């Protein structure tokens, strides 16, 4: 299962589902909807956290949070 955490810089994915129910509400509110395209834009020094472009803005999250977003 491919997640946002697996994306490389510049790589795109489309959100399919969330594997963590508690976290999904926050992600939904921040505009991460199933069917939305995400683009990996930054990976912080030491590889964590990461930042993605989604719904027209840049959202940062930790790697383990990114790994709850399944993409295709």
């Amino acid at each position: 299962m491919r997640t946002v955490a697996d994306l490389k810089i510049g790589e795109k994915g489309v959100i399919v589902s969330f594997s963590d129910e508690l976290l999904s509400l926050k992600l939904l509110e921040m505009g991460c909807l199933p069917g939305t395209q995400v683009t990996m834009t930054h990976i912080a020094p030491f590889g964590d956290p990461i930042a993605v472009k989604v719904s027209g803005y840049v959202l940062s999250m930790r790697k383990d949070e990114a790994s709850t977003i399944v993409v295709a």
Partner: protein
Amino acid sequence: MKKSPKIALIGNPNAGKSSLFNSLTGLRQKTGNFPGVTMDKLIGKWNLETGTEAEILDLPGIYSIYPKSVDEQVVINILANPQHPDYPDMAIVVADASNLKRNLLLFSQVRDLGIPTVLALNMIDVAENSGIVINSFKLAKELNVEVAEVNAKKGIGLNGLRLAVNKTLEQRFNSNDSLPVEYSPELIDEIKEKYGDTDDYHALLWLSEHDNLKQFNTEQRVGFDKLQEKYGWNSKKFQAQETVSRYAVLNEIVDGCLHQIPVEDEPVKTWTDRLDKVFLHQFWGYFVFLGILFVMFQAVFTWAAYPQDLIDNGVAWLNQYLKDTLPESQLVNLLTDGLIAGIGGVVVFVPQIVFLFLFISLLEETGYMSRVMFIMDKLMRRFGLNGKSVVPLISGVACAVPAIMSTRSIGSWKDRLITIMVTPLMSCSARLPIYTVLIALVVPEKSTLFGIFSLQGVALFGLYLLGFGMAILSAWILKVVLKAKERSYFIMELPSYKGPRFKHIMISLLNSTKAFVFEAGKIIVAISIVLWVMASYGPGNAMQEAEQKVKTENPTLTGADLENKIAAQKLESSYAGHFGKVLEPAIKPLGYDWKIGIALLTSFAAREVFVGTMSTIYSLGGEVDDENTTVMNRMRAEINPETGKPMYDAALGFSLMIFYAFAMQCMSTLATTYRETKSWRYPAIQLVYMTTLAYLSAFIVYQLLK
């Protein structure tokens, strides 16, 4: 229409809410407190039309009405409770047009709560730059509310907003009775029957968030729990479903009102992209961050020195002038040595505080602060902190009180608690005056490091680094002690860089400086007066005896020399002198004498009193010729009676600096910790661990340098 309607400004963080607030109200704003919480409440006045003045309430930024952190709870506690004193007559939801869908989610929730709502579309220029054109007439029709296009930063479109607000206030607002989510009507009926009549959505909000709502008591909360059980209600599931279905509705509306001009697949690199290449770089990112901090401290030390010298000399001159012209009396002495010396001790730090607040608000305003959180998160996590702890830690450089309050944005209780516990170790602006005086005393002014950096600036930077290092170390220890397994998260927006809004910065600078001068000033002036009384009077007729003693011991002395001897002897015999003497054995190993003992005592409740106390003590006990009119000169002239060398040498200077760097000498901070943790345990721990740390470190430093 009501005489002065209450209007709440609601919106996502970074949607331009504060800009709009400043554009609407200008300087006609005041800060207050939300009842029961310590968060600053900003209220301003806005003229709607002749005779009607609206009260604008600026609420903290939120993404939805379901709170994820303590600061977001403030908003929902107002909006969920029509009996709340701050419950608005209507709301202006500020939306970022370049990110319309996400911003409309919050809008639709607020509207469904039954609060008359106007949508203010902001940042249309940003949207247009990325090829988005919005038909706001159609949007108004689809959403069934008034929509106003504004440019909050430039203050354009305010008349249109005024019209929209007037219209909404005059009409009866029809709330939406077709909620985009399923629920059982019996459940709603039962809630309304038990907890009062309200809109359906309001009832559902009560049901799912009752644990976070202050309006309900324990019994009512248990009632809600029972209802949840009876109907098999899952709040999180409901909220997630609601969010998805709201987006489904909004998608359709937005797609019909928004025209996207296709942009090329690889869009032009924006300034934000270019800057982030550097600021988020694994080497340059940290380099820039450290560089900014370093420049900040150099600036605070060197630029602020000019106005400070002016103030310092001005106060000394005024004191001397009053003493020369007014007839000699105790009252005049109280005015000059007590009051003016004390007030001068506060005012002299205003330039440094202004510079510090200026830098911090610049970093926040431009969007750079969230980059710092981003590159620091992994490092901070290792020490039990969170990327978001960086803001409290940096703000702690100005003042621990707002810094501790800013921890509310940290979602995890454990991360938040650790941040609260260690933030007071950051060197706040009240320590700055102490450092300034002591560094100037023991670090040579002309020396430089590598020929460019003043050694005094380097010493100051070192003290701030030391405070930071100790904060990190303490956090790590706390992380090991508190083993709570709680999930913390770090989902946040990295806003695009913005030029600082000059007006906004000036207003916040004015507010925070005013707060410092009056809050700290009150305490300092009060303590200065008490101290003057304690230093001018002694038990029984100790003062007369002291004078007599000097006169008989030095029969040949006359004039100024005699006066000084008498003054010094009097101070030693006064109440303050006695206190200092009692303390002396305990602080001797740190290199301190009874005079410093007095200062430690008076600065126990507020450390900024130290310099004021020193001015009072040394203006009472020292010679008064033209060259020795400032505190610093008087302290420099002080001779250690045991060694015959200057009292303030490197050992004593650094021992004092370290003591003040670590000691918990601030009642306001302890009170804030109590309010934020709702327990006396944490402020007590803070007081004990920091004071112990200060004592031991000062002891080690003094013994090593002696």
